[in-house]
């Protein structure tokens, strides 16, 4: 079985996409069609002529054949008629002779010799009239010649002897039947025929008259010239043996002939006639048949050829029609305007798209020449220059931009591409031009440009700094004006945002707040991955200056913090504030009394009572102040009764939480080092938290006076435990302690707005817990406050 050949895949797809018109794209097929077309076109007249000729030949042959057949029939008919006529004429002649001779023979019977002479005379006359009648003999009853013509002494050779058996037989029969009897043909030098006539009908044994006919002569004299011209005539005997003419060439009778009995009934002779040249007509017949055959074959061949040509022609026409439809559809579907110019610059072709584009009829456009109706008046020079350039052959590859009048009088921006139009002999025939409507494109481009400008304006006007950088190498791809104003880079194109520490890397979207070290400003940075115009992933950074907001937030937070702190440690803070006020009162009184006393001391006479009273009241007020301080102490001691078990880590949480905003604002990190495991301390949580809060805040504030904020141990809280005690150490890298002696005295402070009570209270608190608070300088620089509390043993 033959393996099926699979068509090429491309061809299949192509066929699928263009099921109907594929043939059009097959160049070979197309060429074949073209050749067929040409062939048909070129050979057509010849073909037609040969066809007509063949048909004519065939018809002529057929007609000839028909004519021949007809002719032969008519000839045969004529032949029979002519032969019949001939036979009758000869028979008539013979009968006449017979009758005359019979009459004369009867006269011989009559006695007298005169009759014999008269008979001879008559016979002579008869012989002269009938050359075929060669002898007339009168035979007596003994069979002797009595008289006769011709007169001879010796019977001529050409005459049969009177005693010839055939003559005898005829005489016998004549005598028997008493009527004229023809003998059978006697073959002498010529076929002879003897007529025996009885002299007397009534008496037997009387003589007979013999009349001898030369049959050759008979035919020669009796047959007319036209008959001989037309037919071959032959006399046949009983055995169809030809008697006359018995010499010369006898034509072979193959064609039609006619036979007719001749003479008396028993003569057994017959006449046969055949038309001349019957062999010639046979040849003609064969020739004709051959011609008809050849003509028929020729016609079949021609018809087949014609059929093939017709089929090819139809296919070509179909292909042409398809091609035309295809081209028409292509032309209709084109949105590009096409037009062609002849060599002189006149329009010779436009497509519908162009007409639609320009809003003009094709009839108006075709044949028109420069200036064209679609050239706008204000661009006339440009258009004519472009036209001239096109005709001069200057056609740039990227085309030309032109403004034309479009449909409805609107301005039409187009791009014109022109190429030379050449005929087959590569002669320049004109120019083909295509017009692309770029109005929409132009508008879109303008809109794009304007939106770009808008976007740029918006980006420029943004208060936020926007930049786009490559992920791989951090190369800056875009940044807006604000970004350029805010951030300066050391290396060109390097985006510093990438390098800044603490910025999230890699995540899809993240935001962080950071401080620019150069300017000190705070920024909120939102970073997300986006796809750049070339579809590569890039980082979009939007940095917003939040310094002001942050400050405001810090202020608010501090206020909150203060409130929270106040609320959280209400009793202690209120207490301290109350103490301040309370102390103010006796102090103010003491001040007043001292002023009074000094005033009275200056007066004369000295008002001792008044002075004494004032001094007395002064001492009273001093006592009151002392009582106030004492009450503060007792208040704290009174509070520290509420002791519970607390984990030190938990105790640290609250102060760290409260101080985190402050630490953040000051940009200081609070480091905490805790040992593993819980450390249980029995204490008043609020008080210890207050102490921790105070110590850590002091540390933060101390560091903020210096430039050590970035140090890892700027503020360090360490917790260490031994067997029974836990030591909490709060160290800082601030300026350190100037006057360790006064540190824990009430109202000693180095802060501008401090009251100088914090550390004093702290120490009181710690001591009330049975612990100890002390301070020294940090070996690394700065201060170090430590307190020790007893803790509960584990296990």
């Amino acid at each position, binding site marked *: 079985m033959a393996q099926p050949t699979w068509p090429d895949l491309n061809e299949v797809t192509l066929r699928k996409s263009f099921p109907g018109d594929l043939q059009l794209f097959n160049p070979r097929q197309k060429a074949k069609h073209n050749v067929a077309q040409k062939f048909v076109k070129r050979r057509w007249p010849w073909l037609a002529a040969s066809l007509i000729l063949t048909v004519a030949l065939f018809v002529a042959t057929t007609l000839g054949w028909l004519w021949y057949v007809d002719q032969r029939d008519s000839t045969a008919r004529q032949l029979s008629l002519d032969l019949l006529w001939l036979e009758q004429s000869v028979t008539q002649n013979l009968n006449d002779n017979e009758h005359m001779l019979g009459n004369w023979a009867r006269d011989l019977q009559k006695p007298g010799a005169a009759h014999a002479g008269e008979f001879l005379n008559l016979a002579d006359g008869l012989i002269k009239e009938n050359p075929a009648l060669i002898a007339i003999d009168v035979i007596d009853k003994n069979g002797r010649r009595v008289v006769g013509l011709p007169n001879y002494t010796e019977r001529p050779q050409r005459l049969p002897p009177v005693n010839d058996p055939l003559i005898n037989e005829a005489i016998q029969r004549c005598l028997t039947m008493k009527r004229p009897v023809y003998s059978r043909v006697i073959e002498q030098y010529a076929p002879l025929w003897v007529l025996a006539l009885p002299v007397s009908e009534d008496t037997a044994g009387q003589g007979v008259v013999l009349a001898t006919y030369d049959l050759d002569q008979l035919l020669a004299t009796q047959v007319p010239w036209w008959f001989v011209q037309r037919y071959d005539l032959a006399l046949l005997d009983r055995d169809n043996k030809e008697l006359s003419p018995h010499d010369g060439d006898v034509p072979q009778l193959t064609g039609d002939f006619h036979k007719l009995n001749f003479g008396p009934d028993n003569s057994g002779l017959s006449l046969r006639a055949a038309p001349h040249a019957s062999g010639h007509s046979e040849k003609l017949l064969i020739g004709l048949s051959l011609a008809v055959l050849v003509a028929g074959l020729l016609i079949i061949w021609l018809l087949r050829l014609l059929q093939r040509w017709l089929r090819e022609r139809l296919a070509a026409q179909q292909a042409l029609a398809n091609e035309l439809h295809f081209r028409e559809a292509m032309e209709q579907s084109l949105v590009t305007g096409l037009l062609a110019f002849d060599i002189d610059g006149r329009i010779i072709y436009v497509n519908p798209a162009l007409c639609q584009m320009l809003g003009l009829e094709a009839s108006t456009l075709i044949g028109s020449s420069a200036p064209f109706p679609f050239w706008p008046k204000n661009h006339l020079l440009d258009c004519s220059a472009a036209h001239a350039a096109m005709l001069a052959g200057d056609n740039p590859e990227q085309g030309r931009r032109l403004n034309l009048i479009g449909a409805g009088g609107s301005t039409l921006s187009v791009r014109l591409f022109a190429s030379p139009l050449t005929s087959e002999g590569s002669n320049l025939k004109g120019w083909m031009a295509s017009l692309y409507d770029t109005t929409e494109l132009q508008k879109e481009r303008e809109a794009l440009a304007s939106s770009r400008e808008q976007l740029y304006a918006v980006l420029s006007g943004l208060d936020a700094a926007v930049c786009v950088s490559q992920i791989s190498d951090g190369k800056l791809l875009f940044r807006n004006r604000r970004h350029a104003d805010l951030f300066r880079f050391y290396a060109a194109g390097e985006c510093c945002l990438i390098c800044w520490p603490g910025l999230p890397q890699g995540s899809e979207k993240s935001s962080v707040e950071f401080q620019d070290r150069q300017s000190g400003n705070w920024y909120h940075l939102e970073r997300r991955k986006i796809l750049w115009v070339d579809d590569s992933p890039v980082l979009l950074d939007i940095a917003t200056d939040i310094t002001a907001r942050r400050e405001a937030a810090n202020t608010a937070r501090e206020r909150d913090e203060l409130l929270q702190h106040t609320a959280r440690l209400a009793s202690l803070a209120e207490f301290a504030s109350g103490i301040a006020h309370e102390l103010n009162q006796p102090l103010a*009184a003491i001040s007043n009394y001292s002023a009074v006393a000094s005033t009275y001391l200056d007066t004369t006479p000295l008002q001792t009572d008044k002075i004494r009273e*004032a001094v007395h009241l002064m001492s009273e007020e001093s006592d009151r102040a002392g009582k106030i301080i004492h009450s503060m102490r007792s208040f704290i001691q009174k509070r520290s009764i509420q002791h519970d078990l607390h984990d030190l880590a938990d105790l640290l949480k609250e102060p760290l939480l409260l101080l985190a905003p402050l630490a953040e604002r000051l940009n200081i990190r609070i480091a905490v080092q805790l040992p593993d495991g819980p450390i249980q301390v029995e204490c008043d949580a609020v008080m210890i938290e207050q102490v921790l809060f105070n110590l850590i805040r002091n540390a933060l504030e101390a560091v903020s006076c210096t430039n050590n904020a970035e140090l890892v141990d700027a503020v360090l809280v360490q917790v260490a435990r031994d067997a029974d005690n836990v030591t909490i150490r709060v160290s800082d890298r601030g300026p350190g302690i100037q006057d360790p002696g006064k540190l824990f005295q009430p109202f000693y402070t180095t802060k501008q707005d401090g009251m100088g009570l914090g550390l004093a209270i702290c120490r009181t608190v710690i001591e009330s817990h049975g612990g100890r608070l002390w301070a020294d300088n940090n070996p690394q620089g700065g201060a170090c406050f430590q307190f020790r509390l007893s803790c509960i043993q584990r296990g």
Partner: protein
Amino acid sequence: MSNEDKTVIRIAIIDDDAGVRHSMGMLLETRHWTYTEFERATDFLEHATPADFNCLLVDVRIPDMSGLELFDELNRRAKKQPRYIPPVLFLTGHGDIPMAVKALKQGACDFLEKPVNHRTLIDALNRALDIDITDRPVYYSQEKLLNEIAALTTREREVLTEIVSGYLSKQIAGHLNISTKTVEAHRLRICQKFNTRTSMELAAKLRDISPEWWAS
């Protein structure tokens, strides 16, 4: 009290702390100034007449009603009914500065922080007393005029209101639905009562008195 001796200086001390009050009083005595102590602001409001004092010495921090609240109340009452308010000196404890600023804006004379130096206190009191000396006669002349206005008949007061508003006789007649002649007659009588000759003089005399005070 005020009618006994005009030269006697009276100072009100409003403070909750007895020691402070007393020491302050002794200090004032050294300057021969008389004083009256009040423990609470409410006591002062209920029992004293502000105009009787030449100066008020008020502690900001006093229970129940603070010094500032007292000052507000006095101002509020003076708006309702014309009253003389002597200069107010505030005393305050540690860190009440925002409060002090607020008080000064509302017309307090001065603000002193406790414990206050006695010289500073005396100086401040002297300044306050000077202010009192200049402000008090103005107030009293106004009070006299108010009394005179109060003495007018209702119709005359209406006409007076129209006059100080700057309307002409015809307009006043129209407003009050009376004849021009009657207006003229009222005008003449009012001028006589205020001892002025023309309406212009009358208007100038009543310049500092708000018409609201007598309108009711």
